[in-house]
Every structure is written in structure tokens, then in C-alpha cells.
């Protein structure tokens, strides 16, 4: 294990027990990511992509295997320590945005900063919202924004704590092509600027090819792990 690796996954295994029996969703998954790398996970629906992302980000626990995130062995952390780790070093973007419905755009972006106890949270949040082109809409609630606008707020929020690694689960899944395109551009721009490691789940092979590396999952197993030729 090298120190420069920001995410290190080895022999990960996850099964779900449902009424009729147990279902192995992930089986013997191992890979590692270098800091600053951009990385796509692709695969058919139900192949375990979201499950894998959840495990990597410490949102759930594997049945066996190890995950090292930002130099920390996350199996050894309790819930709150993981939360703290996420707050300091991890960003998220979800397919269905997941903004807090009762908070304005500005407040949504400010939450991760406020959690850190940052003094100037709302100024930083405003700067970020300006960057994603929503400077005029900062006091609007999510329900008053379009899907694309909501996802831009989510983007601003994901970057607000200047994460070392950012996980995005089908960030353009609910958006039309053009809007999706703009989101992706923003995502890569922000990423370049901050030097963040980027993990994107997508069905869109064009998007996947924009990353440096593609992991192909099928039936819970790694089918292929390839570098993208530019």
C-alpha cells in the first residue's frame, strides 16, 4: 500500500439478506485510486455500483474486506468518526440531488462548512454559487429550482468543503443531455481547480471516457479495470 493512494479497496464483499435468501451484491472487489485521479464506474443496472460507492464513502459497512480512505482505515472508525471524515475530506453528488428541501440554496451549500465550524460559511457558499452560475438564486428553495439548477447547487455544496475525493452517483441521470453536459463541464472544471479525486458512476460511456480510468462491474464482480487512452 502506497501512501499516495487516496482510496484503497481490497477484497470487498457485500451480501444482502432478503426474505428468500442471501444475495451477494459485491464479490472480491479490489482496486486503488491515486490522489487527483478521475475514475468512472460503469456497469449494467443492479451490478452493484451504488453499493460500492456507498461502501467506499463509509456510508455502509462491508461484510468483509478493507477500505482505506484518505489514509484512514475506515473499518476501524465508528459512525461519528466516519461522519467527521466525510465532512472534512469527502464530497457527494447524487442522481436525485438530495438538497435539504427546507433550506435555501445558499444554506444548503453552507451546511458542510458550518458543520466544520467555519466562520465565513455563507460568504464562501455565495462565491461557490456564483461559480456555478446561480448567484441570483441563492435565496430560493430547492422546490423553486429546476433539476439542472438543483444539481448545480448540489455541485457547489459538494465542493464547499474542498474535499479530497468526490463521489458522484449518476450526476446527470435525471437531466437532459444539454443540462447534463453543462453539469459535467462544471464538475471537471471545479475538479481541475481543486485537484480533487473524482469518482463518477455513470451509464454514459461518453462521460466515462472523459475520465482517466474506467472500472466495469457486472454481477458484483470487476469485469474490467482500464486506463482511458486520450
Amino acid at each position, binding site marked *: 500500500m502506497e501512501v499516495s493512494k487516496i482510496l484503497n479497496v481490497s477484497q470487498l464483499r457485500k451480501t444482502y439478506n432478503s426474505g428468500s435468501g442471501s444475495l451477494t451484491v459485491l464479490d472480491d472487489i479490489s482496486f486503488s485510486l491515486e490522489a487527483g485521479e478521475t475514475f468512472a464506474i460503469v456497469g449494467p443496472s443492479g451490478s452493484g455500483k451504488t453499493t460500492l460507492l*456507498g461502501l467506499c464513502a463509509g*456510508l455502509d459497512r462491508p461484510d468483509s474486506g478493507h477500505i482505506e480512505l484518505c489514509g484512514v482505515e475506515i473499518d476501524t472508525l465508528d459512525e461519528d*468518526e466516519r461522519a467527521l471524515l466525510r*465532512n472534512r475530506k469527502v464530497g*457527494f453528488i447524487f442522481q436525485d440531488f438530495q438538497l435539504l428541501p427546507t433550506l435555501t440554496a445558499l444554506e444548503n451549500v453552507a*451546511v458542510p462548512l*458550518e*458543520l466544520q465550524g467555519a466562520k465565513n460559511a455563507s460568504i464562501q457558499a455565495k462565491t461557490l454559487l456564483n461559480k456555478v452560475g446561480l448567484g441570483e438564486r441563492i435565496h430560493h428553495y430547492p422546490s423553486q429550482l429546476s433539476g439542472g439548477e438543483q444539481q448545480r447547487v448540489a455541485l457547489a455544496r459538494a465542493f464547499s468543503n474542498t474535499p479530497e475525493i468526490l463521489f458522484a452517483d449518476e450526476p446527470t441521470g435525471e437531466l437532459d443531455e444539454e443540462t447534463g453536459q453543462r453539469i459535467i463541464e462544471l464538475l471537471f472544471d471545479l475538479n481541475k481547480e481543486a485537484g480533487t479525486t473524482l469518482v463518477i458512476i455513470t451509464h454514459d460511456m461518453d462521460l466515462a471516457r472523459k475520465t482517466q480510468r474506467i472500472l466495469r462491474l457486472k454481477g458484483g464482480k470487476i469485469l474490467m479495470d482500464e486506463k482511458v487512452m486520450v
Partner: protein
Amino acid sequence: MSDFESSKSGISWLFLMAWRDLRSNAGKLFLFMSSIIIGIAALVAIQSFGNNLTESIDLQSRALMGADYVIDSNQPANEEVIRIMDSLGGPDSREINFASMVVFPKSGNSKLVQVVGTEKGFPFYGEFETEPADASSSYLDRGAALVDATVMLQQDLKPGDSLKVGNITLPIAGALKAVPGRSALSSSVAPAVFIPYEQITQTGLVQRGSRVEYKYYFVADQGQDLEALYEAIDPRLDAEGADLDTHLDESRRLGRRYNNFGKFLNIVAFIALLLGCVGIGSAVHVYIRGKLRSIAVLKCMGASRSQTFKIFLIQVAGLGAVGGIIGTLAGISLQMAAPALLEEYLPVKVSVSISYPAIILGLLLGVLMSVFFALLPLLRTWYVSPLSVLRVQPENDAHTGKAQAVVLGLIFLFLVLLALQILGNWQYAFFFILGLGVSFALLYGVARILMWAVKRYFPEKLGFCVRQSMLNLFRPQNQTSVLLLSVGVGAFLISTLFFSRDILLSKVALGNDENSPNIILLDVQTDQVEAIKKTLRENQVPVLSNVPIVTMRVEEINGRAVNEIRNDTTSNIGRWVLNHEFRVTYRDSLIPSESVLSGAWVGNAEDKELVPISVAENFASDARVEVGDRVTFNVQGVMIATEIASIREVDWGRVQLNFSVLFPNGVLEDAPKFHVVSTRTVGDQSSAVLQRQLVSLYPNVSIIDLRQILSLLEGILNKIGLVIRFMALLSILTGIVVLVGAVRTSKYQRIRESVLLRTLGAKNAQLLRISFYEYAFLGILGSLTGILLSLVGSFFLARFVFEEPFVPSTEPFLILLPILTLIVVCIGLLNSRSVLNTPPLEILRSESR
């Protein structure tokens, strides 16, 4: 990880988040708050209104005595008694009374009456009812007399005629129709003549050896604890041959009715409180459930478990406090408005005063109940992984179960404490809450079984709408448990009110029927009985009873002569027992107003040497005798040895001739005796005609017209009955409003599904039908289960709290069940209405997240 822990957002951020989350959606908030507000408002209103009502009725019980408490004795107060009375601030009014013959100079007739000398001030509660009305205020100043209205009628007297009492002759100021302090019925009652206290000595009738009662009336200080006063003073007075009675005894004499009425009011208030809790509980539950996703998102952002937990706990506590304040204010205004609105229908004049305990209770309850009930769903979030943002996660039951059990335990404890505070009896409190808990568990069980059964035996063959509504019963995030629980517990509480109201009302009605006498003829000689019966028959009134009476005095108690006991200063036997001329009857069975407390009733005397008798509780305690003790009676010179075979509890509140001492058949039949005949007349006019006829035919007979006393008693009982109905109605309404709130809270959960179905092409009629089936099903099942459970609960209530037989009425089944179901269905359909009238997109955008 130490570098992470250094800087953290503080508590103020938690408050900020709690506030931000609140601010934006007024609609949901309003629903949530309305449950708290209504619950608390009802509680506060019922509590304080109830307090006001009991106070008003309390006032009436004081009117029965005319004062708060009275000290009486058969001797003039000795130094010690005077010292005690001085320590109580001295009597506010004095009275002397004795039985005596009085003469009416106009006719020359004489009559045995109770002469009562009273002072200014009395009565302090209630008032004399006289004809003319101003006679009551003027007779003392004029040195005149008030004469029992029946006697006036019998003797054909008019105000201004005169009356000779012993050595003095007084003018008659007016007829006395009703008097405070003269309500207790006993066999020694005689018509009353009131004269000024100062003139009593001039009558020359108060001499050594004559039987005179001295009474000292007191008005208590505000908030004085009369029970405590009684405990402290009565034993000391007892030793001096005096006795202390409080107005509480007076109301107790009205029987258990009154007692139960207080219990009922408490139960009503408590049930209102529980209904409020049900409202708060279901509202908070649904509210927090709607927040689960936000909680998961916050966790993804890196908020710790305790941070998310606290944000929503702070929020709910704040809402609870605000709801508590608004609810309390609403409750107070309701309480203020109620008497004005209901003046016409309310039986008693209700003085409105703000009850501070009720206010504090309202506030406390708003916060604590909200927090406790929020804890249940919030605790679940503690263990929920943030992954639930990505998809609905199965809940982690093992941990949650334990934590929830702790919270449930806390809620249980809290409710028991509240119950204790309100019901004032820890056994009632414990069992009441336990019963509620059991009902709760059973309802939950019914919900689980229902969900299982519907899933297991899913009606595949039925139509789309029915199937869809059945699916709603057990899909994830279903409302089956919450609705069944709130509807069920609501129905349980409401129908318990119905049942216990009936228990009490049936009791209040007793003693007020066609068979209770209102005219009593005293001193009827044995050879007059047949003639009098005939006269009564001719007047078309019934002979309700004909009771033989033998007068006797106590001669020996357990072998000690009365004189010896009298001279024994260490004896604590009540002096009245030694002096009293007992009017005793004999029969072979007990009457409904009597029940044996200890020993066994013997109806026929086998052993004439040692007669097995029964004595009333008060005789036993004052004569210090128990079952098996011996008392010798002097029956006009003949000594009769008796043994106490039983001690009876006598409900003096029943309109019955009740007796301290009761003989079996077979002993007194040949003793010199007179009879008491009772009858019932209807209407003032016919009663007057009958009385006049009886007086002229049988001049020696005294006629006691009970109609005045009866109407006073009936008045109080009717008032109590009305209050019972009114309070029950009020909390039943509360229950219904709370139920409305509970069903309303499920609105936001249902909208999304309906919108989706509609987007998929379901017609409005189909959507409505789906809702209809689901809510009708839940409504019927919930209320039926609740009512059945309350049947069991009410049985226990009747048996152990009210100590009355339980005859369940069909009202809850015939009225409550359909009404509750209808309400649940209506609210359910109303919930869907907003879906029908709004374009789906708008709802999806505003409600879906």
C-alpha cells in the same frame, strides 16, 4: 483523527438548523402544531373548567350545611371547647336547638317542633327560602319566628299570627320553605321553628336535663384544608363531648354519587390529556418520519449522529413549547368563553378563574410529550445508515428496539406520574396507565396481524381499487400502525367516557323515582294506621312504607351503665349515644340504602334473651362497639339485652328513613310504638289539600314535607348529571378533533402515491375509491377494537373505581363506531382532494422531497 475533533460547529448552529428547517413549510407545520394545540387546549379547558365546576358544586354542598364546618355538642361549650373554638378564630354564628311543644294561640293547638335559635350571619352559604321572601332577613331584627311551611299550612297560620314557645310569645314573620343545614334525613326529624338566638333563654326551655343541641358555625379561610382540620380538632372535641362536622361530610352524606362525580371529572380531565397525547404522538411520529431523508443527507454531509438527533429534538421541543403556549392560551379563552356560551344549559353558576396548575401542566405537557414522542422515531435515525439517502434501508431493529423500550418506559412513567397528579391515587394511576398500555399493545398487535394477514391472504381476485387500497396497508412507509393506534386509542378513550358516564348517570337517577316518598307522617298511632291508609288511598296517593318505631335509650354498653360512663372522664364514647332517644325499627331484611360492613345481618330473633341487632357505622364508631359487643336498651322501662350482630353502612343520601339501630323481627312487636307512614304526592295543590285533610283528621300526627329538601337534593344531583354529560361531551369532541388531526397528518405521506397513480392514468374516482376503502377499513377496525377494549376497561373502572354495577350501553357501538369511521373516511378523502384539484407536477415538485 484528533485533528478533526478540534473545531466543531457549536450548539448555536444546531438551533440555527432547527430554525431553518422549520421556517419554510407552514402547511406541514400547521398540521403538526394543530394537534399539539388542540390537545393542550382541550386539556387546559377541561382541567380549569372542571375545577371551576367542582368549586361551584362544592359551594352547593356548603349550602347544605350553611357554613364550612360546625362544632356541635349536647352541652354548652366548656372552657376547653371555648379554647379550641377561639383558636379557630371563634364561631361566626351560634345556634341552639331542641325539640319542644309549641302552642299556636289562634287555634289553641299545640305541636312538637324543633325550636332553633339562630344568630345573624347564618347561613353563610345558601339562603333561607321563606314566604314572604323578606321574612328571612327581617325575623331576627323583629324578634319574630319563622315556621315550617307545612306547619303553617296544617295550622292554617298567616304571617303576623303568633306562636308561644315556652314562656315567650313571638309574632310569625313567615313560612319557612327551605333551610340550609337541615338536609339530612333521619327518623328524628321534626318541623322547624326558627327564633332569634337571644330569645332562647327567655323561653325557659333550656334547663338541666333537657336535650339541647348547641351548634357553632364557622367559615373557613380561603384554601383551608378541612380534612386536616378535622383530623386535628375532632379528637380533642370528642373528649369534651363535642363534635366537628365539615361541609365535606355533608356532601359525603349525599352518597357515593358525589364522590364518584369527582372521580369522573378527574378521569375526564385525564382522558382529555391522553387524547392530547395521542394527537401529539401521532403528529410527531409522522412529522419526524418525513424528516428521515433530511437526516440521512445531513449525515452524508458529515453531521454526526448526535448533531442530527439534536437538531430535530430542539425543533420538536420548540414546537412543543410554542404549541403548549398557544394551546394553553386557546384553552383559557375556551374556558372563559364556555360559561357565557353555555349559560343557559349549565346547571350551576360557574365562576371563571384561571387555574395556574392547568397552565403549567399545559406548557410542560407540550414540551415533554412532543419530545418523548419524537424520541421514538428519532432514535431510529440514530442507527440508520446514511446510505438511506441512496435507497430506502431496512431498519436496524435490535438496537432500536432496546432504545425505544427505554423511551416507552419513560413515557409510561411520565404518564403514571401525571395520572397520579390528576387522579390523586397511585393505584388508579398505575392501573389506568397499565390498562392503556395493554390496549396500546393489543392495538399494535392487531395492526401487525392485519398487515401480515393482508399480505399473506392478498385478495388477488378483487378489483383494482380494493387491491390498491389493500396494498397501501402494508407497503413500506405505510400508515396502518399509526392510524390504527390513534383511531383505536381515541375510540378506546371516548367510549370509556360514554360507558362511565352511563355508570354515573344511572346512579344519579336513583332515589328520584316514583317510589321515593316525599311526604312523611310521624307519630302515627298503631290504631290510626288503617284509617290513615284509607285516607291516602282516597286521595289517590300510595302508601310507600309503614315503619313501626319504638323509642329507647342506651342503658348499658358492654356491662357498664350509662351513668357510670358519663362520669368517667377518660371514656371516649360519644356523649350523644348516651343521651339520645333512639327511634328504632324492626324488620327481617335490609333495604337498598343499607349494606353490611361487618358481621352478619340476622332478620329474626331466635334468642329473645340476647337479641342480635344491627347498628349503623356512626353508632358503632361513636359508641366504640364492634360486632359481638353487648348493648342493653331501656325500652320505656323494659331492659332488652342485645348483641351487635352486624354493622351497616347506611347511604344517608337516599331518600329513605334510615336508622342507627335496627332490630330483627320477633322482639319489639308488642312494645309501645308509633308508626311512620310515607307517601308521594304530585303537585303543590294536591299535596296541600292532603296535608290539610290529614291534619284535621289526625291532629297528633306530624307531617314532614320532604319536597323542599328533595328538590334541593334533586337539584344538586341533576346538576351533577348535567355536568357529567357536558364534560363527557366536551372531551368526546376533543377526541374527535384529535382524531381529525391524526388522520390529517397522514396527508403528506399519501399525496405522492396518489399523484404517481394519477400520472399513470388513474381517474379521480378511482383515487377516491382507493382512499375510501383504505380509510374505511382502518376506521372500522380501529374504532371497533378500541370500543371492545374500552368495554373491558370500563368494566374494571365500574368495578374498582366507581364500585357500581356495569351495564354497558349500546351507544358506543351504534353511534360512536359509525361516526368515528365516517370521520376517518371523510378526512382521508379530504386529504386526497388536494391531489385531485392540483396538477400533479406542482405537487411532485413541492412534496416529493
